[in-house]
């Protein structure tokens, strides 16, 4: 019998923002511990808030009787600690900096109301077992999650400003938010209809990739990529990787089964060619796939296939260089878009800005964007920016159908 402990610790200090001022403070210190017992091809699990005691282990052993199959060897004989925390100030410092940041917005942008949260978050995820596995990943970040509304607007909100970094420079964040609010003040009435470059975050258009690169879906023949493994179906410049490197914040270098990747990364799509789906131990074993460290689940759950951290490999070019003088639209806030089962995407865009020379120049009326996945990431793919021009994020540039209504 092998005993394994999986533990998640979250320590957060959150400021609630109303009318561009802090009106509430929340502190949270949560530890969740899962105890796993492996025996004769079965797994028994029990979990508890806080540290595990002997009762939690006994419950895990009892749960072996539920006969949940898990005939995969636990990860073994590896030790690694990765700490990507940067020196950050105290909670008092964070509160002070945040209040100064919000005061500056109130002064310079009295025509906007900001609400929602500013957060300081620390995370620690660890796994260790009787077989000498001992992994620990620690991280920390400051999150700006502001909902923004113009005082003359009758919308519930107009746009969302989000920014996350391990040690953000509040001045740079202010400049970034300032550029968006300044563009907002310049409404542009021009009608845009037709195909033009759209600047969009991958997470806003990733749904079909997540669904279709799922190893179980591929193995059971229910993925639209099922007959395309090994084939080049996208643009040469498009590569999609499982990214357990240090860039994705709070993403552990190991999955919940303790699986890791060489250099913490592996390509699912490389230079337009679909190489493989994402898989955990079970999916890899069942369908003869490569384990891409894609096991997930709650602290007290049986590990199961889940979406790993995904990144589009950036190009060597900045956003401005990719656009190369072309006017573009940035889809800043999408409103619930989706793909149909053939890969056709459509979405309303609640907040779009016009971009010229890589800079935001004005706010556009609401519009819709659409396109087919094979075109968007094929002939209509310009690239993923090498820089992080807005909100601390890289952006895709895709030639999309844009319509205003």
């Amino acid at each position, binding site marked *: 019998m092998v005993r394994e402990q999986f533990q998640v610790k979250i320590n957060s200090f959150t400021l*609630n923002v*109303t*009318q561009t001022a802090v*009106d*509430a*403070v*929340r*502190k*949270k*210190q949560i*530890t969740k511990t899962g105890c796993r017992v492996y025996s004769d091809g079965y797994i028994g*699990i029990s*979990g508890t*808030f*806080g540290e595990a005691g002997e009762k939690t282990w006994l419950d895990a052993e009892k749960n072996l009787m*539920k*006969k*949940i*199959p898990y005939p995969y060897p636990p990860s073994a004989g590896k030790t690694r600690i990765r700490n990507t925390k940067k020196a950050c100030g105290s909670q008092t410092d964070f509160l002070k900096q945040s209040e100064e940041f919000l005061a500056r917005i109130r002064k310079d942008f009295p025509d906007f*109301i900001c*609400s*929602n*949260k500013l957060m300081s978050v620390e995370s620690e995820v660890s796994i260790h077992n009787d077989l000498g596995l001992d992994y620990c990943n620690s991280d920390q970040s400051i999150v700006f*999650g502001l*909902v923004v*509304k113009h*005082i*003359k607007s*009758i919308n*519930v*909100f107009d746009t969302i400003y989000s920014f996350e970094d391990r040690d953000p420079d509040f001045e740079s964040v202010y400049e970034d938010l300032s550029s968006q609010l300044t563009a907002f003040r310049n409404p542009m009435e021009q009608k845009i209809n037709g195909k033009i470059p759209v600047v969009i975050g991958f997470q806003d258009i990733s749904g079909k990739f997540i669904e279709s690169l799922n190893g*179980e*879906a591929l193995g*059971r*023949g*229910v*993925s*639209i990529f099922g007959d395309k493994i090994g084939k080049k179906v996208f643009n040469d410049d498009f590569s999609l990787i499982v990214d357990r490197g240090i860039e994705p914040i709070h993403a552990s270098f190991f999955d919940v089964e303790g699986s890791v990747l060489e250099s913490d990364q592996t390509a699912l799509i490389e230079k337009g060619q679909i190489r493989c789906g994402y898989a955990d131990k079970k999916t890899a074993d069942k369908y003869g796939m490569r384990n891409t460290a894609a096991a997930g689940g709650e602290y*007290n*759950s*049986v590990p*199961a296939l889940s979406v790993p951290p995904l990144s589009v490999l950036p190009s060597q070019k900045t956003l401005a260089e990719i656009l190369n003088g072309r006017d573009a639209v940035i889809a800043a806030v999408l*409103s*619930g*878009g*989706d*793909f*149909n*089962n*053939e890969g*056709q*995407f*459509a*979405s*309303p865009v*609640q907040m779009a800005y016009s971009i010229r020379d890589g800079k935001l120049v004005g706010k556009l009326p*609401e519009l*819709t964007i*659409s396109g087919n996945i094979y075109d968007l990431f094929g002939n209509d793919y310009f690239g993923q920016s090498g820089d992080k021009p807005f909100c601390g994020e890289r952006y895709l540039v895709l030639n999309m159908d844009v319509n205003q*209504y």
Partner: protein
Amino acid sequence: MYQYPKNLYTDVRIETVSKTNIQFENGELKENKTVSEKGAMVRIYDGKRWYYSATTDLNSIQNEIDDLAEMAVPNSAILQDSVVDKLEINRGMDLRYQQDDVSLISNDQKMALVKSYLELISDYPEIRNSKIFYLDNHTVKHFVSGKGADITFDTQNCTIVARYTIMANDFPQDGQANIYKIRFHELAGHQREVRDEIEKDLDYAKRAVPVKPGVYTCILSPLVAGVFAHESFGHKSEADFMIGDEEMRKEWVIGKKVGASLLNIIDSGQIEGSGYVPYDDEGCRAKKTYLIKDGVLSGRLHSAYTAALLNENPTANARAISFEYEPIVRMTTTYIDSGKQTKEELFGEVEDGIFIDDFKHGSGMSTFTIAPSRAYRICHGKIAEPLKIAVITGNVMKTLHEIDGVSDAVEIKSFGTGGCGKMEQYPLRVGFGGPYVRVNGINVQ
């Protein structure tokens, strides 16, 4: 029980959650988990700022109170504060599900139940990928406040969910069947309903053709009408979006005509189901709130904080997804009320339109969006061929005026999975529903 600090408002919410998750994937047992978790949220208010702390150490609640009190500024007039004044002082026990507590049902009985649904999947060879879940949840909340509130109440649900992917014409089609009940014994014997859903999805997957994008008259099923009400107007009714916003207060003045005269939208925490909230998470007793009555803005959803700031009354809509979060203004069960036409009359008046039967997800602010999972053309008043649609969208405030038909029977829908998201707090269980609702001018893509 606790030493409440002087000159501050304090409340404590302790949640005890017992839940089961049994899951089969393609016939193989993947999960069989029974969990009992306890945690507490402590709140302190000094008249200017709230202070919250979430803890899993129930022995440290007094320490958490004391720590938060250190951060707050004592206010000798706190009991006269308008926010504190709005907080209700309810006392008593409302343990409605103690006799039928799902956590007392044996794991063997739950396994037997889920297996009785598992078998039917194999009757459909077109289903290539399937998951069958049994989920239950019995939650007891104990709320106390320094003002004198002391309430203990419970909520409960149990669900069988079948999720599957059908492969037809070389394209995958996802579908799901959801049997939601309050008591365990009520979950047995609904195999026919699951089969009906699967067969509808099979037929849809085999025959659906891409829609010609455009603007259409749509009839929304009761489920989709409920989502539409939730997304299009429910979120706009959450009063925390209006705090300190004069323009919004002018725009959303009670009594303003905001939709067609036949439109009534209601939110109520009193309806048993996934939006059942006998008391909200600051101890306010559930109420029925008309958001729109006869097309006129009639009310909005409040916490004590927003009610005080807008000089209105709390509506028991301060909710949190768990003890880890502070309550914010959220919906409970939101639905469109019935009209006078029969369903047949509603369809019969449509020459060329679209029936939206089921959905994958929805969202809405100034524009609402619903991604249908099943939709059909309406031709000469009859349901015709199935259509593949990515999304339907429309401007919320224009669309509410475009409703021109509402059928005569309301169906309320509840779910044991998913829920409503608002910023960091997802998923919150809510209910929604309505009659069949006909809307003109919907953008279909």
